[in-house]
């Protein structure tokens, strides 16, 4: 997408280490173009949250560079912290917990206006418009966070983000803990907003159906590394990395005619303190070869443009997909 243009967000071999031992992110490179909807999937502990936090400037990269509009994030934060916050917004996973507990929703949604010294009258008018758009009753503004339902809290959090008119939204598990019907509404809303304001999304989700439905490109993480990156449709049709294949095979699909062979992975995701030698996935990979135990595969591009970190990608192995 948009090849040749400066990506709005990018990570260039970013590693994040906690202490000497834990490498939460290892050599992650990622470009997100304006208007793109990128999905980020992986198990708990794979580094998804660390990636988002680093992207948002909540944690610093140990090495490598995060860039926003081509400018290193650290410089941008020094130069224009509030401008960056207006440009890139993030929705935290637990919406109720992300709202300051002793403030009414009205104060919470107006707070960004105060922080950014935006005109109040115009801001309040926009809050009302967004309320309608988000399907929130105005009475919800008088409530405290714990009095809101999960879906309402999520919408208040979205309103707080949208009031700043961001160009990028990083959403950590936007549908977690919501009823299926509310999930659907929310995803439609996100897609509408994308179409309307040409928003760029990075969506982190355990829910593969969510990723499949709304993202254009997917990134799969395992133990702090990107193991596969491909257009979403291609990734779901024919995963190239054995880990992606295993992940997808666990995904419930509503389609009685179609039977999937479930690939059951043995064991837990290894501890990031004690990372396996060679390919990080070799301890659980059903197709492990001797080479995998010694050499760490690079993230390399396959013929169809997707990238995979595997010596023996499945797409090249006939009949595996």
């Amino acid at each position, binding site marked *: 997408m948009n090849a040749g243009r400066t990506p709005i967000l990018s990570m260039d071999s970013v590693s994040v280490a906690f202490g000497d031992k834990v490498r939460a992110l290892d050599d992650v490179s990622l470009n997100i173009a304006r208007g793109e909807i990128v999905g980020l999937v992986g198990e708990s502990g794979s580094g998804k949250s660390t990636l988002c936090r680093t992207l948002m400037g909540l944690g610093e990269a140990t090495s490598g560079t995060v860039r926003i509009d081509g400018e290193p994030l650290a410089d941008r934060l020094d130069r224009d912290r509030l401008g960056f916050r207006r440009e890139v917004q*993030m929705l935290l996973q*637990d919406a109720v*917990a*992300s709202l300051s507990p002793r403030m009414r929703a009205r104060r919470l949604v107006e707070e960004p206006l105060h922080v950014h010294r935006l005109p109040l009258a115009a801001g309040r008018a926009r809050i009302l418009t967004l309320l309608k758009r988000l399907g929130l009753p105005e009475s919800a503004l008088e409530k405290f966070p714990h009095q809101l339902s999960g879906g309402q809290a999520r919408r208040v959090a979205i309103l707080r983000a949208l009031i700043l008119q961001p160009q990028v939204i990083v959403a950590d598990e936007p549908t977690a803990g919501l009823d299926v019907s509310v999930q659907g509404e929310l995803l439609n809303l996100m897609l509408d907003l994308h179409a309307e304001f040409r928003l760029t999304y990075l969506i982190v989700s355990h829910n593969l159906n969510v990723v499949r439905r709304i993202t254009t490109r997917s990134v799969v993480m395992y133990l702090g590394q990107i193991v596969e990156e491909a257009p979403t449709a291609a990734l779901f049709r024919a995963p190239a990395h054995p880990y992606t294949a295993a992940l997808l095979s666990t995904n419930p699909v509503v389609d009685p005619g179609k039977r999937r062979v479930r690939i059951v992975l043995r064991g837990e995701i290894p501890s990031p303190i004690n990372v396996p030698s060679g390919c990080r996935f070799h301890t659980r990979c059903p197709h492990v070869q001797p080479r995998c135990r010694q050499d760490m595969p690079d993230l390399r591009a396959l013929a169809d443009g997707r990238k995979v970190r595997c010596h023996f990608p499945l797409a090249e192995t006939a009949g595996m997909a």
Partner: protein
Amino acid sequence: MTAFAATRATFARILSGPGGIVGTVIIVLVVGSAIFAPLVVTHDPDALDILNRFSGPSAAHWLGTDNLGRDLYSRLVYGARVAMMVALFAIGSALVVGTLLGMLAASLNARGERLLLIVFDIISSFPSLVLALAVVAVFGPSTALVTAIVAVTLMPHFGRVARAQMLTLRHAPFIEAERLIGASPVRIALSHILPNIAGPLVVLASIDIPVVITIEAGLSFIGLGVRPPLASWGTLIYDGYAYLSDSRVPVIVASAALAIATLGFTLFGEALRDAVDPRLDREGR
């Protein structure tokens, strides 16, 4: 109105146990006498009546009179006023200064934080009586000085609790959310952290009230606090003590007032602590 409902629920829980009920009744009496002292006394607390000195309890003098014939009941009521004023100002300033310093400590880098914690430790480890003796030796005894000494002594309690509470909140999702919308550290600290750590600090303040009452009485008793003729429970006990052979009533009455008030505030403070958060760290002080 959740804030109101929460306050009401807290009160209901305080009054659900015998300790809370007794404590609340005592506090209402003590605080009421302190506030409405001129209305509830039967005599001018400083009016001398030498002929009637050491009169026992009677219809004219409910609790009798002291060595100068002053009405003991009226002096006790004004003594409550002194005790409450000292408690209010000492704890109020310790609460404000301690909380701000504690929050500052939590926000500073490791070095600044350690420096502030060392200051807290120095103050805590310095015996308050020795501090009081030294300061009074320089400035002479006064009520304001007692208040200041008590405030400084108590400040580290609030500083430590505020710091610890802030540290537990620092990575709370709603604090990260505030950083994400661009809120400044000062805004986050005052608008978002302070309201959420206020509960334990208020509980600590209420638990410190009886401590302050006894410190004030103790300093006044040894002549380092409130100056006569101003009535303080400490000076009342001292005056009575000097004339113990003439009458035991003043000492007993003033000591009982001190003990009952201390007990009442202690019971109330403990009930409040349990009502606000049963898990609150009891080693916080």
